[in-house]
């Protein structure tokens, strides 16, 4: 019963890739190879976040003054998606009020990356936001 079923249907399972599935777009590779804001800066909050399944690692450094992100940087390593993500996000949050930083949604990160994120890559894509949020929270706990 089984054998027949598999023999009949297994050849039919097929998936295809379209151009929009290409996640290795020029801007992602640019940020990956030449990351912005990489290296430790003078900071008053920092936190290390890991993606345990694949070993992506990001440490975020934030210098926050009067509820504003004066400066932001990161160190770490990982796949193109996670590293391009934190490169872009540190650009984005510089000068932002931390209350606005806290409002950044997962969808905003996908939009910022400009690529289609598949299920296995969600954690890579969102590691940057997780790290930034933790660093902000860390700052708030210590200053309130």
């Amino acid at each position: 019963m089984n054998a027949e079923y598999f023999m009949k249907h297994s050849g039919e399972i097929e998936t295809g890739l379209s151009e929009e599935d290409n996640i290795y777009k020029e801007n992602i590779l640019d940020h990956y190879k030449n990351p912005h804001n990489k290296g430790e800066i003078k900071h008053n909050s920092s936190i290390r976040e890991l993606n345990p399944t694949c070993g992506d690692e990001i440490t975020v450094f934030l210098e926050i003054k009067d509820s504003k992100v004066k400066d932001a940087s990161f160190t770490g390593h990982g796949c193109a998606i996670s590293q391009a993500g934190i490169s872009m996000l540190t650009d984005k949050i510089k000068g932002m009020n931390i209350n606005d930083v806290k409002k950044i949604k997962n969808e905003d990160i996908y939009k910022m990356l400009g690529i289609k994120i598949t299920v296995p890559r969600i954690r890579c894509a969102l590691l940057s936001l997780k790290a930034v949020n933790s660093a902000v929270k860390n700052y708030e706990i210590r200053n309130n």
Partner: protein
Amino acid sequence: MNQNDFPILKQKINGKRLVYLDNAATSHKPLSVIDAESNYYGEFNSNIYRSLHTLCQKATNEFEKTRNKIAKFINAKEEEIIFTKGTTESLNMAANGLKHILKKGDEIVLTVMEHHSNIVPWQQIAKEKGAVLKFIPITKDYRLDMDAAKKIISKKTKIVSVVYISNALGTINPVKEIAKLAHKNNAIFIIDAAQAVPGTKIDVKDVDCDFLAFSAHKMLGPTGVGVLYGKHKMLEQLTPFNFGGHMIREVTLNDSTWNEIPWKFEGGTQNIAGVIAFGKAIEYLNDIGMNRIKKNDEELTGYALEQIKNVKNVKIIGPSDNKNRSAIISFHIDGMHPHDVSELLDREGVAVRGGHHCCMPLMKVLKIPGTTRASFYIYNTKEDVDVFIEALKKAIEVFKL
């Protein structure tokens, strides 16, 4: 070898033929195994040992037949085979069951190339008992440093637990030699054989290990089934791990006594369908012959090692020659994360694994975030290697290295 028996291999991935090189993670299943699992549910589903009706007799017989096949497969006695849900549970069972022999300051010897499943249980037990963990280091050629091992394994050592074949490096470790070192010091010797049993003829008496752990799903069998082999006299001093149904002899409100070996370690209803299907996997492997499987693995690995040397920027993370090396090829490309390599290979229909392979401590020792790993098994061919190499070149082009 018999690709037609594996329905999953007939499909296309991204419009390309599926080239499955992730066998170290899990192997595919032949139809005989898939059918065995569903036949149990469709024809004689019942709980083993509990009842006296016909269905139960048939299920119990089939279940125990697998125990017999496995015993023969590794040259053990039937009662020395304990079913678990996988290598991880087997190692946890061994670690927990041996806890009572440890005193403060006793040493447990592992290696830096262990999978998390052969590190974390020992860490927990060491913390609880005040025991000390020691690690055998590796050489520049990614092999165990046996000179160091001779010094590390001492009279203080109570347990030595070592991986037979590294899932991250492909290194085959000299387990017979380590068994001698352990036993000379009256230590118990345990082998994580998850990557070894699928492609190597193993004789537990010849290796002289006290315990050996492996999983069905890496050797054509279903997921959720594993084995802990233990020498009879070792199982006598192993404390049970899962307390409950079927593992008891007598229960009163305040105390219990245990069933005989091996059933005292198999508390609760087992993965009956899985165990029965595992028996079919063993039959399939026996029909081909373990020597033939090993030869095929060696030929493919040798060929792939030669071919991969011609790809720019690739550094092999594992023994450089094909001696004492399994069908696992791990590599690193400077400037490309393993996840990106594996995602790009998938576009060409090539399935590999990228990451730390559950060996974070090893990656730390090697100072790399992870590797990309291609691993072969019985259905792979030289053509698969060729497709893989071409896909790898294409992936590197995307990153313009």
